[in-house]
């Protein structure tokens, strides 16, 4: 990876980090009246992966999708406006943090119901395949989501119908407060290989270069073969499941683990780049927040539009 690319990834990841930090800062004011599932700690792999996606490639996410929304090119002002429940939000204030979307940059939805988006990505992949448009479909979801039966149904379907879809599993080892070991008896690698779906793993999701390289390889193979693949990335959720607090004192995970990750978090370690990029990002964020603050609420008439 050349320096320029690294810096782009770094910039994009830092931007997401700073957006999350802004949300943390704003949250006590209660201006954002919506549950937020922060991507903080999980920005790195998202920017590295999405780097290789075209604007028209399709993605679907879980409720933890601030990072993916921004990495794919979603409008920051519309995002803050959406969190504020304003009319200028990307979904007119109806979606909130859990359902970010942006069709113009290929983000076709997110869901607050665990596991729900897997099949959406398959349907989109099927449409892409029929239209022979060379696009891929990507679904980014947590490790817990693989426990839902629909995941099995989707692996079977993706393989059977040879769909150009990439399942990205963000393995942060947690589902709310439950550790992976108490939820899963299966190895994801063995599971997916039972369906004949190629499995890729990056053990260190903070390694921008590694994820970037691997993503390029995976995505170009999907584009070439028009078949599915799965990509598991180990990462670390810094904050509590939902909300803006740290929760290492709650007894279910250790501060040491957090510190181990932080010790090699490029966004912390590489202070120089942070210092270099911060001012510009700060400016963009303040403008976006101001935009949200100044935007009008959706009017009452909008309560009942777009139902059917």
């Amino acid at each position, binding site marked *: 990876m050349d320096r320029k690319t690294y810096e782009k990834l770094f910039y994009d990841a830092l931007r997401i980090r700073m957006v999350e930090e802004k949300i943390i800062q704003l949250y006590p004011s209660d201006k954002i009246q919506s549950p937020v599932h922060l991507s903080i700690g999980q920005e790195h792999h998202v920017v590295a992966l999405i780097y290789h996606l075209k604007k028209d490639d*399709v993605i*679907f996410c879980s409720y933890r999708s601030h990072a993916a929304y921004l990495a794919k090119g979603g409008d920051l002002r519309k995002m803050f406006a959406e969190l504020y429940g304003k009319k200028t*939000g*990307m*979904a*007119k*204030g*109806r*979606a909130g943090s859990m*359902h970010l*979307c942006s*069709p113009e940059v290929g983000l*076709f*939805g997110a*869901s607050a*119901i665990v596991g*729900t*988006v*897997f*099949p*959406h*990505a*398959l*349907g*989109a*992949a*099927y*449409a*892409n395949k*029929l*239209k022979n448009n060379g696009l891929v*479909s990507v679904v980014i979801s947590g490790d817990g989501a693989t426990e839902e*039966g*629909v995941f099995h*149904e*989707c692996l*079977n*379907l993706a393989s*059977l119908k040879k769909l150009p879809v990439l399942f990205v599993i963000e393995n942060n080892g947690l589902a709310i407060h439950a550790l992976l070991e108490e939820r899963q008896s299966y190895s994801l690698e063995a599971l997916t290989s039972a369906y004949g779906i190629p499995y890729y793993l990056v053990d260190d999701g903070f390694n921008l270069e590694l994820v970037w390289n691997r993503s390029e390889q995976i995505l170009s193979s999907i584009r070439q073969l028009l078949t599915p693949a799965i990509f598991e990335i180990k990462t670390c959720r810094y904050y509590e499941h939902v909300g803006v607090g740290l929760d290492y004192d709650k007894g279910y995970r250790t501060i040491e683990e957090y510190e181990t990750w932080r010790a090699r978090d490029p966004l912390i370690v590489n202070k120089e780049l942070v210092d270099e990029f911060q001012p510009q990002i700060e400016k963009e964020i303040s403008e976006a927040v101001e935009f949200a603050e100044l935007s009008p609420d959706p009017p009452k008439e909008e309560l009942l*539009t*777009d*139902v*059917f």
Partner: protein
Amino acid sequence: MRFITYREALHQSMRSALEKNCNSFIFGLGVTDHTGIFGTTLGLEGEFGGDRVFNTPICEEAMTGFALGASLRGLYPIHIHIRNDFLPLAMNQLINCVAKYKYMYGGLFEVPMLVRAVIGRSWGQGGTHSQSLQALFAHIPGLTVVMPSNAKSVISTYDYVVNHYRSPVLSLEHRLLYEYSFTVEPKSEEIINPLTSFLVKEGSDVTVTATSLMVHEAKRAADFVKKHEAIEVEIIDLHCVSHPDVELILRSVKNTGKLIVADTGWAPFGVCAEVSRIVASADPSMLSRPVINLSMAPTTCPTAKALEKYFYPDFGDVVHAIYTLVFETSDHGKELPSEEHKASQYKEFKGPF
């Protein structure tokens, strides 16, 4: 004018969907086999190819989400379930995703699609192959639910939704209607929105609002009471149960003062309840007598024929309800249709499906 069975209307609609809407595709368990969903998808794979007509593994939740994703990307999915009883497995996608997509994203997306599901009934189908689950779906904002009662409704509704409607539609088709023949007029060029209710027959004595097969039972009952007691029944086919024609219903009840709701499902929290709500929240003084609900008995469907016959409402029940309202007592003492007469329409029907 020509005769056509409900089954033929379905087949014709499926063929026409593939022909007129090049983004449409049909899938579901058994759509490509030699029985072709009771004949309604036969030959289509051969004619339109396996990309547009295909069988699926047994995974209702995933296939419903698949439909959503395909719809988002410009395809028009037609997903078929040979029993509506399998839809509970797709409920999360239908309720939490399909119904909400358009609204939740501020109108940025539309997910037009058609889900066809068959209401099974009779001949010992038992508890899980006999339900009529329209209420579960019509309760959810964002889902349009239709229950075509005849060939014309099938043709006009499917043509409209596949080519002109931008929201998800769930259609419940009644298995016992498949072999019925109907007259169909030549299609008019005008595009008329069929997502509403229809006046089937005018009459000034009693209003029967009915769904699906019960429209026919109501018609038979209307003939019967007219012949025997010169009673004039007005019949409204609710058809689009999520979007009933409220004005039509109120106008009729205002005129007759007497209302029977005849539905294929359960009464509590069902179509019977909803029609009562419509009238009671508009003007209950329209009603000169209590509303009579005809519905499945409030229990799981038993398989034994001896019990099943009490489980489903039939044309005799409609006649009895009409007499009860008109003569203002359930002790009306009038003769009801004989068992043979009641069964005569279903004679041809014999399972297994």
